[in-house]
Structure formats: C-alpha cells, structure tokens
C-alpha cells in the first residue's frame, strides 16, 4: 500500500470499510455495504491531486472525516513547535 494513503485506509477500515491491495498495486475501497467505490494507484503520477480526488470521493460516498482529536491537535502543535 502506498504510504500516502495508509492513514486514510486505516481510518476507513476502522469505520467498517473494506480496504485491500489488488495484484496490480491498487488500493481498493469498498463501503460498509460492500459496494466498490474507488481505487488509489501504488505510484500515482500526481500524488497530491490523486489523494484529493480519493478523499473527496470517499467523503461523497459517506465516509465521515472528523477533525483531529484534542490529543492529535496537541501532538501536532508539539511537532510544529519542534520544527
């Protein structure tokens, strides 16, 4: 699985989605009803665009994307201050 998509794939799995890599290196997303939604290539030509396409598509298909928790926000602030 492409590193860019790992966090989103983990989150989707935790929300009842099925996420798996196929033999061609695509990461495929199925919603909790088992319906195939979309795929993400192992080596996209433009990762930033492709990731945006994927995120928008998953949200349209019903994947909730909450803001980071207070713990995550604190962790991010510490990282930012450390840089």
């Amino acid at each position: 699985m492409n590193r860019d998509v790992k966090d989103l794939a983990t989150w989707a799995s935790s929300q009842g989605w099925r996420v798996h890599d196929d033999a061609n290196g695509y990461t495929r997303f199925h919603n909790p009803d088992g319906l195939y939604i979309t795929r993400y290539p192992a080596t996209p030509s433009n990762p930033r665009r492709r990731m945006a396409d994927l995120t928008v598509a998953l949200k349209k298909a019903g994947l909730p994307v909450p803001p980071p928790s207070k713990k995550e926000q604190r962790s991010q602030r510490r990282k930012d201050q450390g840089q």
Partner: protein
Amino acid sequence: MNHNWVVTLTYALEPDTTTMDRWEDQLAALEASIARIPGRGIDLTIHVDDTTLDQAVTTARTGAAEVIDVDPVGVEIITEDEHLRRAEAFTAPELMSAAEIADALNVSRQRVHQLRTAEHFPQPLADLRGGAVWDARAIRQFAAEWTRRPGRPPAGWAVSYECFLDGAWQRLTEQRSSESEALEFYKLLLANSNVRDARLISSGSD
C-alpha cells in the same frame, strides 16, 4: 482567466468494477479518476491545467465522450485550490463532552449541567448513555456571548409546604418578592389545619 481546473462529470450509470478500471485507464492522459457515488451513479474527475473555464469543460467533455458513450447528468467545475480545500475539509463536527465544556468555560461539570437548563445553552447533538456531546463551535459561540454573573445569585424568597388536596398530601411552593411577604404567607399557613411542614426558604436564580 487561466487556472488549473477540476471538472467532475456525473453519470447515472452503475458500471461494474472492471468497466470503471478500463475507463480510468483509457482516460489516464487526463489524470482521470472514477468513483462510485452509492445510489447516484459515478463521478468522473478530470484535471485540466492552465486554461479558461470554457476550455476546461470542453476538454473534459470531449475526452470523456471518447470513452463513455453516454451524456453526463451533471457537470461541476472548480479550481484546483477549491478542490484541495474540499479534500481537507472535515465532514463531522468537533465534539465536546460536559467535562470538556467545563474546562472550556472554567466551571465545574455540575455547573455545565445547570447551564443546560438555560434557554440559550446549545442543545447536545446526541444524548448518549455515556453522556451528552455538543458541537464545539456552538459551545464556543455560547462562551463568547455568555454574560457571567459570578458569586452567589441574588436572593429571592419562597414558602414550601405540604397541602392536603384531593385526598393526599402534596408539596407546593409559592414565590414571594420580599422576605416580609414570604413571612406573612408563612404565618397564614401555620394557622391552616390542611397544611403541614411549611418552610420559609431563601432562594436564588441564574
């Protein structure tokens, strides 16, 4: 004016996975991606760089028509910046529990539960077995507009008593605006044989 555009064409189609893969591969030159929108069909997203809005729509529609032999039922065109903003936007609100609200307002949890009865306090999004949760934005809005009145609330007076009504003792409370009025009413109750356990009480309100 030239921009990088993202054109999304919506089709009322329910293709299988193999067909979706084939279309996406055939449209690779347009950086296309295809996604199913449950119950509505599919979205074909195409990136068109450095053109006018009209040129971007024409490029996307012409390219798509070579592969998908059906007219779309919808077209949306936005700049790439707007597309990225939408991708980063959250779909669920930030939630707060009573304990987090207590921290944010610098009050006790008990006070939060008192505030819930105030008319202008936000309604919780959900009241779960483990406690209620609120939209953090609504709480911040409340905090910004909340007029605090620290210290003990101004005293009022009331008389609480039990009265024999309809064959049973019932507890009633009567408010009075001053201590002398409350005392006068209390004395009247003491002389009434249908009344027991009368109490003169000082009370306050928010």
